[in-house]
């Protein structure tokens, strides 16, 4: 298990740094790797889908947990899966669907490890109903700095410090996840094409509780009366009766096609005002209002997974994803944030707006009741200034940024966005008194 010197980046392909990377295959090898950490410390890394630098550790050690790749058991009666932390949600879904079992929380991509899902306490389009990922974790095995393995349940403070704790409490090596039951792998989808942001947000607020999944996409390239025109899509799992005849034969088929892998050939500036405008126009037009359509997993949940490695479109300069939550009652601030982007010309093609339900006990968990918006912004001049203005707007409403997407905020800003961070620091300091768990993000934001 020799470490290999590797330069790592996040999904946004910004801020690379170099670390010694090890790929342990067993929990014992994880413990052995921890012992080899020096003063530059150690962090775990899953599939590298966080946009910024939380799974990088410049000059130190990175434990790649994808070598822990076994699913230990699937209990179809209890609807629980016992899995290694390096297993991806994609793999889990493929294995669980034949049993009519479904992961309650799925983010915008399935290429996320279970360990990463816990470390970021990820959420999905079903947050208003299902909450976030860790709320469905029955127990997890955490290797702490002293090399001990703790089996944590939701009764443990350390469980909640690890949920959304960005890997800084230890290495999650295994977890038991509670699952939902489904009759089919398909969704019954209601799509509404709505021509401005205010109407979009109004419509999204009505009947939210009737849908398990709810999300809207909006166009960030038009200003004026059609600012924020968009597509609202809401869905429930389709029942067997909902399916057309030809799908009924194999209703639990993992129907999630990937059509292509994006080649690594795009120059900087490929995604510009013109191409974004074209994309937005197309995306808006392709989704006329239609209710009750049956869609497969890719079409509804993961339209981006249809193209592998799609981040390459952003070219070598990379991009960042800005995702905030702004509490309900501050809808004007949501609108203002969209205006700011349109005014400054930092176009984004992938703009996702949804409503969060209640948050949970984890001090660093991102979701809280409110509007969450995610936009992908290519890195170019003036972006720092735009983001700083957006930060101020978010702070003024008592909102916050998502650490799994964050890549450029200030330590002071994050400190104010997460008022319970000292509570988290206390738990962390007890379990890692010498601070061996550290990441580029932790250094950059002075989290620990």
């Amino acid at each position, binding site marked *: 298990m020799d470490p290999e010197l590797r330069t790592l980046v996040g999904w*946004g392909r910004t801020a690379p740094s170099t670390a010694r990377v090890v790929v342990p295959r067993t929990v014992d090898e994880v413990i052995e790797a921890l012992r080899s950490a020096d003063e530059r410390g150690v962090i775990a890394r899953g599939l590298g889908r966080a*946009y*910024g630098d939380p799974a990088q*550790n*410049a000059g130190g050690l990175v434990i790649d947990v994808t070598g822990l790749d076994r699913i230990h058991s699937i209990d179809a009666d209890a609807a629980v899966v016992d899995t290694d932390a390096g297993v991806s949600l994609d793999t889990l879904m493929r294995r669980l669907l034949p049993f009519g079992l479904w992961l309650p929380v799925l983010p915008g991509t399935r290429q996320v490890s279970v360990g990463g899902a816990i470390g970021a306490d990820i959420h999905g389009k079903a947050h208003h109903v299902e909450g976030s990922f860790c709320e469905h974790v029955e127990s997890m095995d955490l290797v702490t700095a002293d090399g001990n393995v703790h089996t944590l349940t939701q009764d443990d403070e350390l469980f909640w410090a690890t949920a959304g704790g960005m890997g800084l409490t230890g290495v999650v090596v295994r977890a038991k996840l509670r699952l939902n039951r489904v009759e089919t792998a398909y969704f019954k989808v209601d799509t509404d094409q709505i021509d401005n942001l205010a109407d979009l947000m109004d419509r999204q607020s009505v009947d939210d509780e009737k849908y398990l999944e709810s999300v809207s996409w909006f166009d960030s390239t038009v200003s004026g009366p059609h600012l924020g025109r968009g597509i609202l899509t809401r869905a429930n799992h389709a029942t067997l009766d909902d399916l057309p005849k030809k799908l009924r034969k194999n209703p639990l088929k993992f129907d999630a096609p990937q059509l292509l892998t994006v080649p690594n050939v795009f120059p900087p500036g490929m995604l510009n005002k013109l191409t974004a405008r074209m994309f937005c126009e197309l995306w808006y037009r392709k989704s006329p209002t239609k209710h009750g359509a049956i869609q497969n997993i890719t079409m509804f949940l993961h339209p981006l997974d249809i193209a592998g490695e799609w981040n390459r479109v952003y070219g070598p300069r990379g991009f960042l994803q800005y995702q905030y939550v702004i509490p309900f009652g501050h809808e004007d601030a949501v609108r203002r944030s969209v205006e700011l982007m349109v005014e400054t010309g930092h176009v984004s093609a992938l703009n996702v707006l949804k409503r969060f339900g209640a948050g949970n006990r984890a001090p660093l968990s991102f979701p809280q009741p409110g509007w969450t918006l995610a936009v992908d912004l290519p*890195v170019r001049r003036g972006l*720092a200034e735009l983001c700083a203005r957006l930060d101020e707007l978010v702070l003024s409403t008592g909102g916050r940024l998502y650490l799994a997407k964050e890549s450029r905020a200030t330590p002071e800003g994050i400190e104010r966005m997460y008022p319970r961070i000292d509570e988290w620091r206390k738990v962390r300091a007890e379990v890692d008194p010498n601070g061996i768990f550290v990441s580029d993000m932790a250094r*950059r934001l002075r989290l620990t």
Partner: protein
Amino acid sequence: MIDAVGSPQSLLLLGGTSEIGLAVAERYARARPSLRVTLAGRPSDRLDAAAARLRDLGATVTTLPFDARQPDTHTEVIEKAFADGDIDVTVLAFGVLGDQEEAWTNVDVARELAEINYVAAVTVGVPLAERLRKQGHGSLVALSSAAGERARRSNFVYGSTKAGFDAFYTGLTYALKEHGVTVTVVRPGFVRTKMTEGQKPAPLSQTADQVAEVIVDAVRTRREQVWAPAVFRGVMSILRHVPRPIFRKLPF
């Protein structure tokens, strides 16, 4: 860490009163007011004034005594500079131009140029590279010169020191890449600063602030070699190939 939009949190300026270096520091301090800056240079009123100016922009500034002509102290200077934590961007901006006619006729003047511009760049560069290699990230900006590309009659001693400087830092570019460190060799043409005061500006002359803009852009996009202004790349690649009998007769 340098963040996704290219803003560093800490900056070390070797040559703490360099106008180009300070212009870079000011740009970064404006983008991120909590910037931590270390100004390494010979203690002087000018160094203190530079520190005060950056503090006014919100930066946390410390000054660090650094004498380019005392190579034995350089490892210690670098250790001190890194004592407060990682350095995201290091700008190596010390250097002297000197009187060029004296420089090729007076051994002391020539030696001073060689010691500051080349020897010190190496004796600082080695421990600096070692620290950056260990921290696994960061950006090192080395201020070379177009003069190092092809020695001219009018400043060939200066040019020879910059040629050595340029070769050393270009080499570090290769050596440090796999360790996560980007070395950017910057080759400005004529820059109107106190260093060139009283001289007739050459064509395509630049201000310190213009060069600083080029540097900040180069760090953000992790470029390994830039010219200031960019058009100099083309100009120099032509000059490099002009036959010597013609080159020596060119009017500069």
